[in-house]
């Protein structure tokens, strides 16, 4: 017995060394590892929310760059006012409709954020951090909508339809998919939309289509069929800046949608998939249009990587890097074809919102049913739960997931188109949707906002054009060689 005891004391002594030391001598109240999980996940979601919010700057620059000089101050204020409005609406009832529990069709909990628990659902993310993240998503959707309505929408009309978009259509349709008890989310094989190809982009893009249809084209806009074309955007630098800011913001959009940094393999995978899809989309669009005009088209390449980003948004968690490249590349081509189709429909979409967000949102949603690898399930607060992985057609998962993706996407697309047209025509009926022709000729900025966006002081600019417009001439060129030809002159 003594021996035994000695032995045990020895063991006890052994264990008390490191371990004992470990748990002793801590000044601050000891923290359990579990106490760190929610803060880490909340910090992750907040950083993601900030990035998603920053996408507003991206949309503003992209839309301004793709628009004409006369209509850009309007774009600035529309995006700002929609953001502000969206915040208040989402606080009041948008969030309640979307993320409160209720029935399969709509939530009715947390109006005005009342009775909010410390953390949302089982995410372990601070409730208000989750709210902010979702507000940023809602805001994105309403901005996409305004994208196709640039240049002729009365500002009052914009405020009015935004009420319907951010306050009703987006949160209610969103509830179906992301709500705790949404009917699409609770199917036996649930409809899956990881970060919102459907919830945000299809909805936004289809509402944009509805708006553009209800509005009609900008004054003087003639379509390809009629020997016209899209009037050139006034600033490709702004457009490019906007595009890259959007790409940057997408790193909040997709990786943040795990709502968990503890699923660290997941956030890494999502971030890389997002990137590769964008890369493939940009190149695909660029090379796909090259043969048409034998020009390297900057604008279409921007919309190309955006198309890739939109498409990967739904499947980003469940597909492989290779799958992401395929999805992105296809999206880049689909976007171009969708642009042609919208043009053929004689719908004036100045920034390509319908093609980029609508068409590629639908494609991305469906692509999950094809490319899901069957390795990954769902992220959770303490890590991934891959017990019930998602498998697509190409990975031997059969058509179950594909089926529900197609159905879900179709249902949402049709519903939103109907609701959107109803909303837009209602605003039109109220006579506040579109400005008068006189105002459009005068420039919507001057009339709605009191001044043009630009007030350059020409007398205080440098006229570098003229000296440096000249070839080196005598100095470094044979005299004859100095003579240029063709386009630039």
């Amino acid at each position: 017995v003594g021996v035994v005891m000695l032995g045990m004391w020895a063991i006890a002594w052994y264990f008390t060394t490191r371990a004992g030391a470990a748990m002793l001598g801590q000044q601050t109240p000891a923290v359990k590892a579990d106490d760190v999980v929610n803060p880490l996940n909340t910090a992750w979601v907040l950083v993601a929310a900030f990035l998603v919010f920053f996408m507003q700057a991206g949309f503003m620059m992209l839309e301004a760059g793709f628009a004409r000089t006369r209509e850009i101050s309007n774009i600035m204020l529309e995006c700002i006012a929609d953001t502000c409005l969206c915040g208040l609406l989402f606080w009041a009832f948008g969030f309640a409709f979307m993320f409160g529990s209720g029935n399969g069709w709509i939530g009715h909990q947390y109006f005005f954020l009342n009775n909010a628990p410390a953390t949302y659902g089982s995410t372990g993310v601070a409730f208000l951090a989750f709210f902010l993240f979702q507000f940023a998503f809602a805001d994105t959707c309403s901005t996409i909508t305004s994208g196709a309505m640039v240049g002729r929408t009365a500002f009052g009309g914009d405020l009015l339809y935004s009420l319907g978009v951010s306050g009703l259509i987006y949160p209610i349709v969103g509830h179906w998919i992301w709500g705790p008890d949404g009917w699409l989310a609770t199917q036996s094989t649930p409809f899956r939309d990881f970060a919102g190809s459907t919830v945000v982009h299809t909805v936004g893009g289809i509402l944009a289509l509805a708006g553009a249809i209800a509005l009609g084209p900008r004054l003087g806009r003639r379509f390809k069929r009629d020997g016209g074309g899209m009037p050139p955007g006034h600033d490709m630098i702004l457009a490019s800046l906007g595009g890259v800011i959007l790409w940057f913001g997408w790193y909040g959009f997709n990786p943040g949608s795990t709502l968990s940094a503890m699923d660290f393999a997941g956030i890494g995978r999502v971030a890389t998939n997002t990137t590769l899809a964008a890369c493939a989309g940009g190149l695909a669009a660029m090379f796909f249009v090259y043969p048409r005009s034998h020009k390297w088209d900057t604008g279409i390449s921007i919309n190309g990587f955006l198309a890739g980003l939109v498409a990967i948004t739904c499947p980003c968690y469940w597909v492989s890097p290779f799958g992401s490249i395929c999805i992105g590349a296809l999206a880049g081509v689909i976007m171009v074809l969708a642009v042609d189709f919208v043009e053929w429909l004689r719908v004036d979409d100045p920034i390509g919102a319908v093609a980029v967000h609508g068409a590629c949102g639908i494609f991305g949603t469906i692509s999950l049913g094809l490319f899901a690898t069957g390795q990954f399930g769902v992220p959770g607060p303490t890590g991934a739960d891959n017990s019930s992985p998602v498998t697509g057609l190409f990975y031997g998962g059969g058509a179950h997931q594909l089926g529900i993706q197609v159905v879900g996407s179709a249902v949402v697309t049709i519903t939103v188109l109907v609701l959107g047209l109803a909303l837009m025509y209602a605003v039109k009926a109220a006579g506040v949707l579109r400005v008068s022709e006189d105002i459009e000729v005068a420039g919507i900025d001057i009339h709605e906002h009191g001044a043009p966006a630009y007030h350059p002081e020409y007398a205080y600019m440098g006229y570098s054009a003229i000296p440096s417009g000249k070839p080196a001439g005598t100095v470094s060129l044979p005299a004859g060689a100095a003579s240029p030809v063709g386009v630039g002159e």
Partner: protein
Amino acid sequence: MYLVTAIIKPHRLEDVTESLKDLGVSGITVSEVQGFGRQRGHTEVYRGSEYRVDFLPKVMLQVACDDTAADKIADTIVPAARTGKIGDGKVWIQELARIVRVRTGETGADAL
């Protein structure tokens, strides 16, 4: 007094002004214009669709001078601005009834 006006290709401006300086021209006024002429415009591409541009950038020079100098100035501009390609532009001469230098109020040849 005459006013010589020239419409030229932008990248020829530097040579033209150099040769006018060499000729002893005391001043030139330049402005950015757009020209349409025998040299048709070109097609530009934007987000996959094409559109025509009828007007091409040109530069307009105006030189006021006294009666004797006008032809000399025109004859200096023409070769300096010439590339031999279509679109090189025009030079025309108008008569001035009067010219004044703002700073001094001098008129006529003294104003130049």
